[in-house]
C-alpha cells in the first residue's frame, strides 16, 4: 500500500517534468514558426519552409530569411537561454529570488567601455567595426566580473558579494556619466540606444561566436548540477559533503558572468529574463533539482526571448521597441506574482 503511494508520488513528479518539457518544446516550435513567418515582408509559411530546406538563393524570400530573420532568431534563442541560466545560477548562489544576471554590475561595466569607445574613438572621427564594439563590451563586462571575483576570493559571506556587485555597478555608472560630459549629442543618443538592448542586425558570424561561448558555458553549468544541488542546503552543509566551496563560488560567478557578458556584448542589457524565467520553471515543475531545472531554464529563456523579440519588432513595425521594455513588461509581473504567492504561503 505504501509502496504504491510512493510510486505514485514519483510518477506524478515525472509526469510533471515531462509535461513541462513538452509544453516548452511546443511553445518553442510555435515561436520559431511565428518568427520565421512574421516580418515586414509577407512570406507564407510554406514558402518559408521551402526556402529553408530546399534553398532558393537569390530570391528575396530566401535572402530575407537567411540573412535577416534566422540569425536574429538564433540570437534570441541562444542569448535567452544564456540569460535564464545566468539568473538561475545567481539566484541559487545568493539564495535571493530577485537576483539576476545584472546584479553583479556586469552591464554597467560593459556600458562603460562602450561609452569610452564612443566618446574617445568615434568622436575623434575614427571608426570602429562592430567586432570591436562587441569586444569592448565583453571586456567591460568581464572586467567588472573580475572585480567581483577578487572580492569573492577573500570574503566568506555572500551578502558582501551582492553589495560589492551593486557598488561596482554604481561606480561604473558614475564613471560613465563623467565620460558622457565629453560626449557629443550623437554619442549620448547612441549609448542610450545601446543600453536598451536589441537583437536586430545579428549576423551569422555573431551567431557562431555566441553559440560557441554559450553552449560551452551551459555544458559546464549542467556539469555543476551536483554541487549546486548540495549548495541548496547552505555553504556549510555543502562543504561537509565534499564541495570545494571556494572553487565552486568562483566557478559560479565566472560562468554566470560569462553568460551575461556574452548577452550584453552582442545585444546589450536585456533585463528580467534572468530573473523571471527560473521562477517560472521552478513554479511549474515544483522542483529546484538542477538536473531538471537547468535544461528547462535554458529552453524557457529561449522561448521567453523569442516571444519578446517577436513582440518588440512587430507591434509598432517598422519602429522597433527595445527588447528590455518588452521583457520587463512581461517579466516583472511574473516575479511580483510569484513572490506574492510565496509570501502568502510562508
Amino acid at each position, binding site marked *: 500500500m505504501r509502496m504504491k503511494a510512493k510510486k505514485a508520488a514519483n510518477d506524478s513528479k515525472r509526469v510533471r517534468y515531462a509535461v513541462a518539457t513538452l509544453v516548452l518544446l511546443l511553445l518553442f516550435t510555435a515561436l520559431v514558426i511565428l518568427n520565421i513567418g512574421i516580418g515586414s515582408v509577407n512570406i507564407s509559411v510554406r514558402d518559408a519552409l521551402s526556402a529553408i530546406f530546399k534553398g532558393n538563393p537569390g530570391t528575396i524570400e530566401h535572402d530575407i530569411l537567411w540573412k535577416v530573420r534566422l540569425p536574429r532568431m538564433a540570437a534570441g534563442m541562444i542569448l535567452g537561454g544564456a540569460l535564464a541560466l545566468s539568473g538561475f545560477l545567481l539566484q541559487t548562489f545568493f539564495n535571493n529570488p530577485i537576483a539576476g544576471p545584472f546584479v553583479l554590475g556586469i552591464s554597467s561595466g560593459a556600458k562603460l567601455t562602450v561609452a569610452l569607445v564612443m566618446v574617445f574613438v568615434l568622436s575623434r572621427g575614427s571608426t570602429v567595426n562592430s567586432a570591436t564594439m562587441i569586444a569592448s563590451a565583453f571586456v567591460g563586462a568581464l572586467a567588472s566580473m573580475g572585480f567581483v571575483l577578487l572580492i569573492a576570493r577573500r570574503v566568506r559571506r555572500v551578502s558582501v558579494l551582492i553589495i560589492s556587485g551593486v557598488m561596482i555597478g554604481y561606480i561604473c555608472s558614475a564613471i560613465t556619466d563623467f565620460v558622457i560630459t565629453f560626449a557629443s549629442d550623437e554619442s549620448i543618443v547612441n549609448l542610450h540606444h545601446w543600453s536598451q538592448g536589441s537583437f536586430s542586425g545579428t549576423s551569422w558570424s555573431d551567431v557562431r561566436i555566441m553559440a560557441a561561448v554559450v553552449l560551452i558555458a551551459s555544458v559546464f553549468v549542467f556539469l555543476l*548540477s*551536483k554541487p549546486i544541488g548540495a549548495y*541548496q*542546503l547552505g555553504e*556549510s552543509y555543502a562543504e*561537509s*559533503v*565534499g564541495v570545494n566551496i571556494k572553487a565552486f563560488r568562483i566557478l559560479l560567478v565566472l560562468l554566470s558572468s560569462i553568460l551575461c557578458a556574452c548577452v550584453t556584448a552582442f545585444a546589450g542589457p536585456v533585463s528580467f529574463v534572468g530573473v523571471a524565467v527560473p521562477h517560472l520553471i521552478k513554479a511549474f515543475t515544483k522542483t529546484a*533539482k538542477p*538536473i531538471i531545472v537547468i535544461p528547462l531554464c535554458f529552453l524557457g529563456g529561449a522561448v521567453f526571448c523569442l516571444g519578446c523579440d517577436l513582440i518588440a519588432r512587430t507591434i509598432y513595425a517598422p519602429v522597433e521597441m527595445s527588447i528590455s521594455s518588452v521583457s520587463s513588461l512581461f517579466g516583472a509581473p511574473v516575479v511580483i506574482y510569484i513572490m506574492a504567492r510565496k509570501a502568502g504561503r510562508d
Partner: protein
Amino acid sequence: MEYFFQTEQLAVGYDGKPIVKNIEASIQKGQILSLIGPNGSGKSTILKSITKQLKTIGGVVRIGSNSIEDTSLRELSRLAAVVLTERPKPELMTCGDVVAVGRYPYTGMLGILSEKDREKISDALRIVGALELKDRSFSEVSDGQLQRVMLARAICQEPEIIVLDEPTSFLDIRYAVEILDILRHMALERGVTVVMSLHELGYAKRVSDLVMCVKDGHVLYLDTPEIIFTKDVISRLYDLPAGIYEQLFGGL
C-alpha cells in the same frame, strides 16, 4: 588501545587567535563524546575545527589514523558527517531530497541516485523514524521532524563519525530523547563515533561515554559521566553558587 578519534595539542579559534588551547582527547570507535560548558566557551568552535569548516590554529586532529590536514575534503566527507545548528531553508526540496544530499560523496558526476542510494535514503529515514516524511516538503515540517531529517541526512552519508552541534536545542523532551537514542543506536549497533555539544546536562549524562568540559580557553576535564556529573565538577564548570547543584540535580 586503538583510538579512532584523537586530538593532540589542538588549538582552535578565529583569525589566528586561539579561543581554546591544548585540547587533548582520545575516543574509540563507537564511543560518544559530549562537550559541555558555559556559553561562548568555544564548543562550536571546536566542532567546526574538527570537521575542517574552520582552520585549526595549532595541533593535530586525527580521524582514523590520518591527520585531517592530510585528508582531502572528499575523503573527509566519507568519514565525517555533520548536523549543524543552522536550519537550512531550501525551496522546493522534499525531505527525501534533503537526505539525498548525504549521498553526495558516493554518486557519480551528475549526482543521479542509483537504486542502492535510494535504499540507503529510505534506511536512514527509517532509522530516525521519519520514513513517512520522505515526499513531504521540507519547508513544512516541524522542528522535531526537521532535526530528525537532518540526522537522517548525516546517517545517509555513511560516516565513521558524526559531529553534531547542539542537536537537542529547541526540541522538547520527547524528541530530544528520540534523537539521543538514535545516536546511541548508531554508536552501539553500527560503530559510528559521535562527537557533539550539549546544553542539557541530563542528556549528556544519559548518553555519553566521555564528557569534555570546556571553560575559559581550555579543557577543564575529560572523563566519564560518573566523574563529571558531580557537585564539584559541575559547580566549578558553571560557576554555580552554593546549593544550586543540589536544587537542580538532586534527584538525577
